[in-house]
């Protein structure tokens, strides 16, 4: 198994996946999200920066509580009540954090769509699948016959068998995999340019998971869709994403092209994640488990938040917080010793 082939050579990656060429669709620059908690607020997303170029899948990876969902929710504009945002969020050049609520609502579904881990919570139990998928089209004033055809097309594209019969089903009549497919059809109905997928396969069995990821990847390629794929599972992100953003305790630890980052991490946390993935071909996940538990934004250690668990921590790490900085072409890392790590 060669690790030297570049994604561009393969069928899976028609996109150069080089953030430096062309204007990004989405620019996340120093994004901050503060959530209200008893007696104050907690910064759950802290100066997060990354781009999503057109037709590119960016994977957002990190353990639970690292701020992945809040980052995605900030992009789509669905943060909990009382949340405060800061930094910059630009959609095709447009300032999203300062856009009107009406404008943000219009963006949702039409330009940016989202799918979740639990489609049942997102789908309406009292309406047929066909009705829900067609909703956005009907609201746009498309004629009924048109809507029906388009819904059939969308269900078929999402891999739902016998779409003409299935469009009359209710969500509870679908299996978990079919529900996620219905959710994908619904998300595609507004012809978005960016799809946010938050743990879309986490609740599914592995064979179903593989099929849904294959579907997402083929839709992404065929339609030139951009995708932000959020997952705690490195296997999922590695499988689908051209670029990867690794989060730890609300901050970006490292980002860059998936292949390069996973083959040669520039941050000790990324390296630990890669090493602890339980693989079916290698039996190494237990060799050097990290000590301790993931830091949370509410309980962030001083200096580098990772230092209590980091095998490479030095005195400096306990007091000085490393800022993300370029460490190789297209790559950023927030570790005082990133260059040394890359040199190994």
């Amino acid at each position, binding site marked *: 198994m060669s690790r030297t082939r570049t994604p561009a050579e393969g069928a*899976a990656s028609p996109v150069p996946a080089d953030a430096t060429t062309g204007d990004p669709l989405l620019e996340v620059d120093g994004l901050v999200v503060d959530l209200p908690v008893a007696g104050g607020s907690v910064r759950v997303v802290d100066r997060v920066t990354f781009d999503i170029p057109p037709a590119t899948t960016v994977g957002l990876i990190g353990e639970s509580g690292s701020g992945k969902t809040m980052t995605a929710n900030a992009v789509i504009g669905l943060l909990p009540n009382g949340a405060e945002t800061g930094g910059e969020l630009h959609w095709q050049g447009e300032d999203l954090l300062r856009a009107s609520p009406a404008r943000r609502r219009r963006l949702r579904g039409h330009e940016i769509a989202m799918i979740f881990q639990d489609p049942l919570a997102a789908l309406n139990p009292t309406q047929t699948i066909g009705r829900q998928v067609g909703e956005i089209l009907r609201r746009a004033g498309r004629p009924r016959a048109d809507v029906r055809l388009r819904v059939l097309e969308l269900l078929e594209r999402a891999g739902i068998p016998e779409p003409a019969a299935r469009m009359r089903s209710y969500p509870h009549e679908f299996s978990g995999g079919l529900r996620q497919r219905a959710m994908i059809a619904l998300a595609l109905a507004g012809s978005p340019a960016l799809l946010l997928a938050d743990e879309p396969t986490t609740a599914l069995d592995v064979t179903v998971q593989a099929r849904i990821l294959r579907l997402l990847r083929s839709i992404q390629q065929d339609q030139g869709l951009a995708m932000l794929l959020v997952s705690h599972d490195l296997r999922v992100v590695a499988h689908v994403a051209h670029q990867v953003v690794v989060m730890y305790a609300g901050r970006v630890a490292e980002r860059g092209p998936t292949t390069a980052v996973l083959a040669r991490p520039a941050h000790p946390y990324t390296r630990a994640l890669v090493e602890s993935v339980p693989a079916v071909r290698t039996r190494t996940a237990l060799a050097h488990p990290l000590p301790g538990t993931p830091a949370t934004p509410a309980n962030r250690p001083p200096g580098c938040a990772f230092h209590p668990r980091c095998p490479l921590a030095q005195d400096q790490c306990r007091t000085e917080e490393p800022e993300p900085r370029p460490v190789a072409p297209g790559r950023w890392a927030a570790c005082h010793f990133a260059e040394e790590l890359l040199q190994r």
Partner: protein
Amino acid sequence: MSLLEVNDLRVSFARRNAWFRSRSADFVAVDGVSLAVAPDEIVGLVGESGSGKTTVARAIVGLVRPGSGAVLLDGVPLGPVGRRTTAQQRAAQMVFQDPRSSLSPRMTVTAIINEAWRTHPESAPPGDRTAALHRLLDDVGLDASVARHRADELSGGQCQRVSIARALAVRPRLLVCDEAVSALDVSVQAQILRLLVDLRERHHLAMLFISHDLGVVHQIADRIAVMRRGVVVEEGRTTDVLGAPRHEYTRSLLDAALELSTTDAQDRSGN
């Protein structure tokens, strides 16, 4: 001889669905499963959700009554939980997926362990309980200071260590771990898997390790049994089953897991 033997186990449940009348056949969740776990051995039980893994586990520890078949410990058939000797009850302890719901959230760690000792007084330490408690916590990699904390003050990984300590408190010979690391973050998952392997060595524990994640099972199991729709379709040494699966279902599970494996994805040209 095997420590644990499961012979042709069958478990069915009455259908509760109102659409089925009382006449309809019961739902067969486990349909003739046979398994064996030797002393010191870790056997992985894998399969997709609904395949019957948890039901097998519950039958082993006596929480469901088999329709037919037998569960044997040291060759001796076990009855339902109420008819097991205390030694038999202690011998097989279960560790569950979600420690937050299997531990009483408001109980302190000390109280949780004391309760285990109260249930099985013959396993309780003679003399100084505090010292024994601290040894037990140390055994599962927890600091003594955790003892006075309530379960709901602990992280997921700490809770799972407490669940393991509670199981170990009664000095079992077999741990039945049902998706015991599935809800944990991957860095914590590796710690707990490592702990289980270390405990096996230290205490000569055998384990039935249940997981839907082939990769996880691969990390710790000596042998693997693959379940599908209530039936074990393939069983053998881990390296054999994953290296050269014989059953088509095992192959499909393996293919899906491989498709998602990091190393394959790094080489994303293949598709």
